[in-house]
Structures are given as C-alpha cells and as structure tokens.
C-alpha cells in the first residue's frame, strides 16, 4: 500500500512544513517515507511544492505523475494538479486563494477557506495545517491523535510555542473535513 500526497502553493505558505508533518506521522507508524521538495534559489518568491510518499515497503520514485492526494493552496496549483489526482483520490483546495470549484467528479474534493479559517484563529500562516487536517479526516490516512503527535515532533525545539495554535488549526481542518 503506497500513498502519495502533493502539497502545492506559493513559497511562504508553509507547503514544505505541512509535508513534513505528514511525513512525521508516517514515520511514527514505522512506515517508509519520502519527503521530496522543489528546491533551490529559483524557488525564491515563486511556487513551492513537495511530495510525501508513505508505504510499507521500500519506496521507489520519490515523485509521481498521479498522486493519491493533492493539497492546492493557490490558483496555479489547482489548475495544474487537479487533472493529475488519481481516480478516487483526494483534492483539498484553499478556496480563499482560488476562484473556482473543483470540476472533476471522480475524486473526493474539499474546498475550504483555509486562509480565512487560519486568520480567524489569528494566524494566516496556519492555512497549510487546516488543509492537512481536512485531508487526514476524509482520507483517514491516520488518526487525529497521530497527526497531533506528528505536529509536536515537527515543532519540537525552537517552535514549541506554536504547537497549541497548530493543533487548533488541525482541529478546524478536521471539523471541516467531516
């Protein structure tokens, strides 16, 4: 069993971090994981994305043409990746940053105003976690507890103070996903 999630958005939207949280969740469950980012200076200011794959066997390609799920945090990402989501896969869209509905009917899609929700809990930059929460809820990749645990791991050390707000954001996403 292998799952591939593609996170895509503008640089600065926390795309890479959201991916790390998911990767940590898988790691904690003893799975094989790859976190594969777009990288380098040319990413500066531009778009960013990363692919997180988890599986119970040695992982081959760290990037895939048709991921099982996509989190799209801006319009270009939605336009570029909607078609690539696997049939019956998941597409989570931040409707605060996009101006259209998901058109495909053969996938499970959620459009939620993640940025607004995040702003409502006082931190615009938590939209990524809100979206992740929603994905986890409908995909059931992991349980909420595991994700919270992964969040803690990812924020250990310097960023401890952010744990609480992140968990709230995750919760909002979860609620929305249900």
């Amino acid at each position, binding site marked *: 069993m292998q799952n591939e999630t593609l996170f895509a958005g503008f640089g600065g939207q926390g795309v890479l971090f959201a991916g*790390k949280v998911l990767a940590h969740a898988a*790691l904690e469950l003893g799975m094989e994981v*790859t*976190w*594969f980012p777009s990288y380098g*200076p040319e990413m500066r200011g531009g778009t960013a994305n990363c692919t997180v794959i988890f599986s119970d066997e040695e992982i*081959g390609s760290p990037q895939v043409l048709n991921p099982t799920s996509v989190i799209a945090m801006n319009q270009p990402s939605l336009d570029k990746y909607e078609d690539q989501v696997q049939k019956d896969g998941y597409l989570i869209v931040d409707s605060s940053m996009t101006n259209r509905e998901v058109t495909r009917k053969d996938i499970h899609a959620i459009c939620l105003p993640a940025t607004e929700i995040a702003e409502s809990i006082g931190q615009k930059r938590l939209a990524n976690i809100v979206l992740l929460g929603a994905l986890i809820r409908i995909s059931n990749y992991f349980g909420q507890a595991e994700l919270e645990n992964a969040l803690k791991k990812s924020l250990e050390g310097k960023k401890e103070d952010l744990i609480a707000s992140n968990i709230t954001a995750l919760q909002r996403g979860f609620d929305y996903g249900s």
Partner: protein
Amino acid sequence: MSRELWKGNEAIAEAAVRAGLQAYFGYPITPQTEALEYLSARLPELGRVFLQAESELGAINMVYGAACAGARTMTTTSSPGTSLMMEGLSYIAGTEVPMVLVDVVRGGPGLGNIAPAQGDYNQMVHGGGHGDYHPIVLAPASIQETIDTVYEMFDIADKYRTIGVVMVDGSIGQMMEPVTLPPMKEVRKIWPDWSASAAQGKRERNVLTSIYLDPKEEEITNLRLMKTWQQIEKNEVRYKEYFMDDAKFAVVGFGSAGRVALSAVRAARAEGIPVGLFRPISLNPFPRQKILEYTSKLSGFFVVEMNSGMMLDDVILASQSRIPVEYYGRMGGVMPFPDEILREIRLLHTNGWKTEGHPRDRWLAKLETIVKEEM
C-alpha cells in the same frame, strides 16, 4: 535503533562525522550546500576541522594536504565543482593518499541547473582528470544507503589509499527519508606511518609526491595503481537486485533512476510482466561479471539513466553484446516518472527487442517526440 527523518545532504555530513571525518574543506554549491552548512556547525563543536575554501580548487587541494597529513578528510560538491577538482584528484590518485568526495550531481553541461541528474557518470567513472587512475565510485539510491556508503567509504579509501567517490543526484541531497544513523567512531589518534605529519625523530621522513620524471619510475607507479585497481575490482563490486530470480528481462539503472525504475518494475510485475531490476551500486568497479552472467538467462537489458546513456556503454561492454540492450533516459535535470519507464517496459514486453542501430539513437528519436509532447 531509532529512525529519524533526515535531509540527504545533512545525513551525508553526519555519516561522515560518525565515520571519523577529521577535516572537511568545501565550497557552497546547490544542491549540495546543506552538507557544508551542517558541518560548519557540527565539526567545530567536536573540535575537528571545518574550513570553507575560497573555491573548489582550494578545497580539493586542502583535502589533498589533509590527506597527506594523515587525516580522514572529505569534500562535497556538485557538477561544476567536480570539474574544478580534476587536477587535484589526478594528483591525489598519483600520490596514493585516501580521501572521500561526494558529488551531488545537477543538470549540465556548463552552469546548467540544480535539478537532479546523472550526467557526471563519465567524468567520475571514466576519470575526468588527466593520466591513468581509477577512483572508486559508489552510487547509492536512498538516504539510508547513502549514509551507509559514506560511512564505509572512509574505510575503503584508507584500505586502498585511493579516492572514494559517492555520487548521488540532487534529489537524494534534498529529500528527507527516515534513517538509522551508524555509531560514532573514535577519530584517528595515531597518524599513518606514510603520512606527512612530521617525523618527530620517530621515523624516516616521508615524502608524498606524484612526480616521477623517469618514465620507468612513473610506469612502476602506474602499475602499482593498476594492481590495486585489480584488487578493488575483485573486492568492491556492489549491486542490488529486485525480482531478478524469475525475471525474463531486466531494467538496469543506478541511483535515483534505479529507484524510479523500481516503481515501474513493480507496476509491470503487477501486470504480470516478468521484468526485474538490476541496480549497480558500484559504478567503478562496474558489476561486469554479474551482468555477463545474466546474459545467459535474460532476453535483454533495458538501461535507464538520467543522462544521455553513459552507463549504457558499460552495460553493453559487460554483456559482451550477447543479448540486446535498450535505453531510456531523461537529461538536463529532468527526472523520469515511473509511468514513462513502465510504458517502455510494456513496449519491450509486447514488441520484443530491436537490434538495428545503436540503442542511443533509437532512444533519441523517441525522446524528441516525447519532449515536444511535454511542451
């Protein structure tokens, strides 16, 4: 032992530290820089040597000095940087001192780009420096494998007093995977008896040089190097096999191309296609013997690389052209998707093997249309 998520470049650096790295010299270059940055904090805190050189030329010659001085030493760089190290590498080989080089390959030639590529294969494997020498070149495919390779490479380099190259591509340098780190080794306390570490009245003085004005003396050195190389060819061949026991034909790919191929091979197996994957880890020495053996049980080799088909020639050579070889690759930093390779596997399975012309030419004709389509 606990598994942790590590970024490739940082894992490489930590593995070297645990292998007893005493002196690191390097110069920033994407997609390798995190290794240098990591060591800039890590080595000083351990009281070991970290120095950012003024250039790759400076770096390789500092490494050369540190190697002569008897230290476990390493540099890390990426394609354009390796080109600047060629003179130094040739000297190091000629002087028979050990060192480890990690090349995190990017798209080229020239300034190219920073995306994952395998275009340094010929430069590293067939010797980019002048004169007769053979560096050991190992090409791991995952971060765990990379760590283990770097960790072991220091011992291998010491054993043969040779250059040990770990060649990975940008994706391995940049991605994160769970790894188990090897134990921390003691750093060397006694300097090797051959090293330029000051005689201290305890031994004859040592002179380390690569100049032998008398050709006959140089030839003796060349001969010694070649004999060492024969030992290396005997002892250091490494590869990994997937689905090979009952395979009717095999994909051959190293590093990331190999792991992308793995996904494709699995998918093909799921479709009942009897294909296996042979993933060379030691590119130099190349698993010649193993490839030759397989010619008796396989219908053909399908080579996959992220370059214009460099290992391809070595596979044909090793196979002694006994069975057909097909090629597929992407260049310039484009990483193929498993789907592309699966497509080719299906074609081979259904249409069988072509033999007229050179596999490289067949592939180029194909690639042209593919590139157009992707535009």
